[in-house]
């Protein structure tokens, strides 16, 4: 059977599963829609959080990025997992005890201020939108390659599916759908990784195969070989980095803190019955995420060696283009790989210096990996299903935050306080529908690279929400003026820095021009510090928070008496 039919069957079957679950768990009330009625088991919630968290960027792009960045890829690995420690230890249990639906709800109530609530709503919508556009693009790329349709059709199919179960199911539907999506995506990620690990090193676990000797009998360690190949071809040593240490530090910190501040991740911890469950949930979520995140760097190194050897040949003399393997021809059609025969010898050659004749897009590594390693067609179809699952689950979670921010935080709590439960639910669904259309538009016409946009989302979350929430819990005297000033200063500084270097004047985006040699990807860390400092200074100049607010903060500090999350 050819790959197209197999992809159709496997992706189709996974869709039927998701839609079936969405219908089974249809939301009946605003409570179901927003937080699944607070009744989800911690392990299920952990899986759903993991699926929510691992987006098309984690599934499709990350291993590819690491494979080209080597050691520097650690910023993503550490950043996108380490944030869960902050979340579990400093945020999740307290926010669960607080017992409201959304992050702007917490900020608005804790800082007894509509201004704070509105600032938080705008930040939340902005962060989620920048993130969701990339997901739609991811679905489009997968469909256009494997179903051989154009990218617009691919995006439209994705929009229809997301619309169906976000709008009908709400959080309850999404939670159980995401459990299924986690299973699909992790299976799809591990199968090719295990196959390739066995082929290359004889180890079943990619995590140990990563540090093992090659199975070709040479007795050389995989990484040693990769370092040697990289140097020979004019790249940096794979296990050393090229970025400055302080920059690596700041990018990692921004991604960690951004993770802990992302509204669609935080809202997950409102869906469990107890504070104790919120703590467990974060642990399970990270465990499920770690399975993929420790496989990714192994996959990256396997893919790198495989790719170099298939293009350059085992003797490093180049392979005749006429004998190029089918994956090169397939991906050439999408324009993501190209070959230019500079020296006219009819052979392909890949290198880091002037000998290079190949252009290889980083984003294709995971999708092309099974083809490069000559794995059976069903594995390739499975990877397509996994990529779609990753993109859909994240889009659904983000869309839910956008719709609740609009209907609950903006309309109910701000503009139209008298609407009924039913009307609120209607507006939530309407907002989700509008958001999907806008996201679809950006999926078809992406504003620059997906990775740039995603870095933006993290920087903004790190510099706005994280300090406000941390001070809200651990510093009970912090007042409304301090928090609002801090959020505005942090997000303002970060946004200006990123917009300047990424969109206004990209030519100036070199280390010499950076503030403290921190790249736009890492500037969220500085924005976060500015937020803390400004908030503290303004607090010192104004009155401390009123007595009843300080009482409220003391109440969220211990678990006893946590009820279900409520709206009022």
């Amino acid at each position, binding site marked *: 059977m050819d790959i197209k039919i197999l992809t159709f069957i496997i992706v189709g079957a996974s869709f039927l599963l998701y839609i079936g679950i969405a219908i089974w768990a249809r939301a009946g009330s605003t409570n179901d829609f927003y937080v699944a009625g607070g009744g989800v088991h911690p392990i299920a919630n952990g899986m759903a959080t993991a699926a929510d968290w691992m987006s098309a960027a984690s599934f499709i792009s990350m291993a590819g990025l690491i494979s080209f960045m080597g050691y520097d890829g650690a910023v993503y690995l*550490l950043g996108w997992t380490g944030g869960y420690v902050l979340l*579990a230890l400093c945020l999740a249990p307290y926010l669960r005890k607080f017992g409201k639906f959304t992050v702007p709800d917490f900020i608005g109530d804790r800082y007894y201020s509509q201004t704070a609530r509105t600032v938080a709503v705008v930040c939340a919508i902005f962060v989620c939108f920048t993130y969701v556009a990339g997901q739609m693009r991811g679905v489009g790329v997968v469909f256009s390659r494997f179903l051989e349709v154009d990218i617009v059709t691919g995006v439209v199919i994705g929009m229809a599916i997301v619309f169906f179960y976000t709008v009908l199911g709400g959080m309850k539907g999404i939670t159980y759908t995401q459990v299924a999506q986690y299973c699909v995506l992790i299976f799809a990620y591990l199968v090719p990784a295990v196959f390739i690990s066995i082929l290359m090193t004889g180890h079943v676990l990619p995590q140990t195969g*990563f540090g093992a000797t090659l199975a070709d009998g040479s007795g050389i360690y995989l990484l040693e070989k990769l370092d040697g190949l990289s140097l020979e071809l004019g790249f940096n040593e794979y296990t050393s980095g090229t970025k400055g240490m302080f920059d690596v530090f700041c990018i990692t910190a921004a991604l960690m803190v951004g993770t802990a501040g992302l509204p669609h991740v935080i809202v997950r911890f409102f869906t469990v019955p107890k504070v104790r469950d919120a703590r467990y949930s974060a*642990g399970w979520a990270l465990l499920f995420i770690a399975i993929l995140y420790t496989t990714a760097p192994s996959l990256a190194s396997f893919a790198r060696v495989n790719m170099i050897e298939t293009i350059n040949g085992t003797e490093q003399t180049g392979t005749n283009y006429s004998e190029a393997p089918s994956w090169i021809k397939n991906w050439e059609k999408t324009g993501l790989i190209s070959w230019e025969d500079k020296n006219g010898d009819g052979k392909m050659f890949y290198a880091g210096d002037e000998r290079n004749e190949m252009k290889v897009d980083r984003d294709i590594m995971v999708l092309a990996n099974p083809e490069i390693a000559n794995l059976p067609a069903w594995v390739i179809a499975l990877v397509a299903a996994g990529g779609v699952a990753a993109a859909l689950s994240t889009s659904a979670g983000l869309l839910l935050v956008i719709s609740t921010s609009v209907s609950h935080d903006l309309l109910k709590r701000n503009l139209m306080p008298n609407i009924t439960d039913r009307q609120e639910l209607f507006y939530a669904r309407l907002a989700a529908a509008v958001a999907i259309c806008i996201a679809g538009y950006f999926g078809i016409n992406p504003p620059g690279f997906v990775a740039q946009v995603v870095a933006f989302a993290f920087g903004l979350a790190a510099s706005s929400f994280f300090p406000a929430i941390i001070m809200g819990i651990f510093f009970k005297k912090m007042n409304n003026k301090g928090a609002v000033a801090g959020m505005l200063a942090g997000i303002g500084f970060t946004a200006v820095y990123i917009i300047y270097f990424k969109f206004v004047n990209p030519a100036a985006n070199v280390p010499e021009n950076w503030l403290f040699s921190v790249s736009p990807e890492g500037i969220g860390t500085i924005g976060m510090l500015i937020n803390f400092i400004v908030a503290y200074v303004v607090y010192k100049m104004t009155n401390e928070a009123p007595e009843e607010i300080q009482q409220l903060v003391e109440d969220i500090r211990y678990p006893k*008496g946590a009820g279900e999350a409520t709206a009022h």
Partner: protein
Amino acid sequence: MAFKTEEDKVAYWKDNISLVLKLLAVWFVVSFGCGILFVDVLNNIQFFGFKLGFWFAQQGAIYMFVVLIFVYVYKMNAIDKHYGVDEE
């Protein structure tokens, strides 16, 4: 009032903070310490087929993160029980 006395309330929060700070110290050392700041020093040590610093940055720190959260859950539940503020 969930706590028996005002002193209990203060002591509970102090225990909580000290646990979190200890765990965050480990968090910082394995990720930012071993994986970034001291990576070059640790890279002189061979750990199976890895350089040790590289292993911390791309594998080891992630395992530690998972362990840290479960240690936190376990210890924190015990503290809650000790002060009688756990959920039934």
